[in-house]
């Protein structure tokens, strides 16, 4: 459909479309949310079915489930320390949700919900509020000392405090834009080169041969995008852990 008008339409893949008929339209349930449900279902299936045999020597699925578990557990305890153990399920949910969103989006006909700034900003805002509330609950008023490091000369306060506040408030922005931009860039590139394949393929005799070039680019891009999918989920999780570390320890 992208190449029907002989133009490159790389952005219509991000359009939100209501699903589930009139009911879905009434509650604003788009295909993006359907893919979120699919991701939650797949995560649950992996963790529940994978571990269901509870084998001492794990099979493949169980090994995968345990690998994700231990990876995130090490991440959380390594960054936050043992006090961070109780936030581990939250970070795990975050990592898996982003990872599965990125990976499902790479399948044909699928939608990438992590390519929507509203979604990534929603997740980043959740992280922001969770870390801020954790810091306030653990440290009370002392939390505001975070914005003015101890031992700094007092006359620097007018400079340091605004800088610290701005850097603190910009966390959710950078967290969300990073993921959003990575996913959009990747999917736009995929779509652009896929369109080249179709356009070049229609150029008579040399078409199919010429189309091989963008096709091979796309093959490489898909591999790169799988790497990016893991990397961005990891970055999202580790930055959440760093923010949690700041919330628990205040510097």
């Amino acid at each position, binding site marked *: 459909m992208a190449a029907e008008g002989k133009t490159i339409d790389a952005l219509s893949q991000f359009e939100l479309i209501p699903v589930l008929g009139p009911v879905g339209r009434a509650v604003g349930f788009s295909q993006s949310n359907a893919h979120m449900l699919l991701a939650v279902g797949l995560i649950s299936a992996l963790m529940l079915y994978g571990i269901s045999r509870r084998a001492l020597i794990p099979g493949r699925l169980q090994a995968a489930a345990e690998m994700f578990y231990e990876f995130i557990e090490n991440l959380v305890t390594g960054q936050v320390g043992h006090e961070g153990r109780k936030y581990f399920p939250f970070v795990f949910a975050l990592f898996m949700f982003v990872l599965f969103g990125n990976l499902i989006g790479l399948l044909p006909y699928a939608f990438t*919900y992590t390519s929507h700034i509203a979604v990534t900003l929603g997740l980043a805002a959740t992280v922001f509020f969770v870390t801020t509330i954790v810091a306030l609950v653990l440290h009370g008023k002392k939390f505001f000392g975070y914005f003015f490091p101890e031992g700094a000369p007092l006359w620097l306060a007018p400079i340091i405090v605004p800088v610290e506040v701005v850097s603190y408030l910009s966390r959710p922005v950078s967290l969300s834009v990073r993921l959003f931009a990575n996913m959009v860039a990747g999917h736009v590139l995929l779509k652009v080169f896929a369109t080249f394949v179709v356009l070049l393929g229609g150029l008579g005799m040399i078409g199919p041969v010429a189309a091989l070039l963008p096709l091979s680019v796309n093959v490489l891009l898909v591999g790169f995008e799988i790497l990016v999918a893991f990397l961005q989920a990891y970055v999202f999780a580790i930055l959440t852990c760093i923010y949690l570390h700041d919330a628990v320890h205040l510097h």
Partner: protein
Amino acid sequence: MIRLSHRKVWHALALAALLSQAPAAIAQHVTAPNATGPVHTTAPLPGQQGESVAVRADTDRARAVREADRTAAEYQQAAQSDADKGGMPQLDFGNPLMISQVVWLLIIFGVLVFLCYQFLLPPVAEVLENRRARIAADLDAARDARAEAEAAEAGRRDSTARARAEAQASVAAAAQAAQAESAARAEALAERLNKQITEAEARIGAARDAAMGALREVATDATEALVQRLSGVQDKAAVQAAVQRELAARNLKTAG
């Protein structure tokens, strides 16, 4: 240390974000003709609806709107906002699906967090804990077995050493006994020999004394006979004394 790594990660990520935005900017240039082309700059009039539907038939939104059986006014509004936003559906915050998407996101993600806390992670923790306990128990058993083996080895070495010591002691005792016996035998032999030597010396002494006594008698007799023959004097006592004196002097000389 954590501060430092935080900074490093931050710089790396900022760079990555910059780099990753470059392709997006390029992509926007590529798609720019589509967004600013004649199709979008002229908002479709109600009368030209059929034509604009045909032109815009390539977007998913148009398909969705057609499938959703919206009214012409709704479609026009959607198309207008599509044209206004410059082509990026993610930035079309006028779309009501945008808000509902975030609401559903919060609901679905909340469910996932709840599932993780309640159902998904505890079994994994249990399995891992069981395995850790099993491995620890096996390691303990192995450590015990090794300690046992080491103890047995030490006992064996001990008994070997004891046996060797015993053997050495008995060998030494036997050697000592043999030495003592031979020493005693040698002593007895030496004693007997000494006794025999002493006896022999005594015998020799007696024999010499006897010989000396006989010599004095013979000398006295011979001297008396010589003196009598030569001088006719018969003084047994004076001869005897002279012989005695002469013998004692010789004896002294020989003894000396």
